[in-house]
């Protein structure tokens, strides 16, 4: 979706003003710690995947997304996921009172399991039978498509030409994954010249590399 999260190339956002590396705390407010931990812990209940989680944040009104701080967006996403998955009701969220008539059968992450679960991670590699459509060194073009659901082809790449520099094999396809389906597609890294993305005035020996799934791409020589 062309949401408030798709920021590559946006103007007017100002300077970065980084905090000093040695002084910056991991969390800036106590509540951020809890939002972070609640998001991870409830994620382990297995009701949603990482793309659904991203999509829940992206689906906010773009003004909210941009105005919110980072962990405010996490909180908004978490509330959406909890309600969409039926783990909480709107009424519970609003009142703060637990409705005991909906008992849960969830297997909850325990302190003892945290270390192992984090270490285990979750591979997104998904072997697929078809061979890759594009080869290293091939010119490709990002299809100029604007899906209303979740996608990981940034707007600034659409309709642009680049060169495949790496094949990663089959990876879970995020557009489907955000709808709860686990399908695999070949994943590639595509190199774009800055001038192709941003115009000739910005051609100062810069390249942008973007990981793109096969259905985002078409052969560079074919006009859409």
């Amino acid at each position, binding site marked *: 979706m062309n949401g408030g*999260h798709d*920021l*590559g190339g946006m103007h007017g956002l*100002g*300077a*970065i003003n*980084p*905090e000093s*590396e040695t002084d910056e705390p991991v969390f*800036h*407010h106590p509540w951020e710690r809890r939002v972070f*931990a*609640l998001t*991870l*812990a*409830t994620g382990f*209940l297995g009701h949603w995947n*990482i793309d659904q989680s*991203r999509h829940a*944040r992206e689906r906010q009104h773009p003004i909210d997304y941009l*105005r*919110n*701080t*980072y962990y405010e967006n996490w*909180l908004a996403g*978490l509330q959406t996921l909890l309600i969409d998955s039926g*783990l909480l009701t709107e009424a*519970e*969220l609003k009142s*703060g*009172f*637990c409705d005991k008539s909906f008992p*849960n059968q*969830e297997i*909850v*992450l*325990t*302190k003892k399991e*945290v270390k192992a679960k*984090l*270490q*285990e*991670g*979750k591979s*997104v*590699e998904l072997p697929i039978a078809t061979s890759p459509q594009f080869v290293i060194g091939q010119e490709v073009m990002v299809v100029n498509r604007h899906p209303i659901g979740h996608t990981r082809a*940034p707007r600034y790449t659409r309709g642009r030409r680049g060169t495949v520099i790496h094949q*990663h094999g089959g*990876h879970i396809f995020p557009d489907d994954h955000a709808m709860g389906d686990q399908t695999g597609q070949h994943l590639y*890294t595509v190199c774009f010249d800055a001038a192709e*993305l941003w115009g000739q005035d*910005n051609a100062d*020996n*810069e*390249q*942008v*590399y*973007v*990981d793109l*799934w096969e259905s985002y791409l078409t052969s560079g020589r074919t006009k859409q």
Partner: protein
Amino acid sequence: MQDDHDHDHAHDHDATEAPSEIELRVKALESLLVEKGLVDSAALDELVDTYEHHVGPQNGAHVVAKAWVDPVFREHLLANPGSAIASLGYSGRQGEHIRVLQNTDSVHNLVVCTLCSCYPWPLLGLPPQWYKSAPYRARAVSEPRKVLDEFGTHLGTDISIQVWDSTSEMRYLVLPQRPVNSDNVSEAELQQLVTRNSMIGVETLKVFSDTND
């Protein structure tokens, strides 16, 4: 909640200050989820403790310093980063698929995630605020040299800037160039010289001087 929005640099409230609206809201949500039996408070504390105190850029610095002193490891790291990094004990969530980007005299790498905040957690911990900020996400891909300038990193146009937008689950770690004049420095000391920012690519490492400034 609104009052946080106007700050670029959020800071912890004084203990004497009344809790903010969002603080109360998060507290209420946590209580509700605990009461529903959906989360365990001790597990939440453990998750926070892990990323606040145990997993951080020291892990990535270990990988980088070893790559500088051990050519066999370096080769392994570049050819098969996942297995090389796991051999030092780092793996897991948000680091399942890693690629290492080597800086050279003619190539400088810079990592961003324009769509969210993807970052190699097992090696660098959680990302700093600026990495997740809208200005960095917007500008790193479209004007990387200006972005680098803002970090005090001034690179001539003879050096190619390669920006990596983390759109997939591949995670990118920059292997910075070893500081000039550090040939006789031990691996343990080198590790102390590696900054987090150099492993994201917004900084290069300065010339080593054992008198230090």
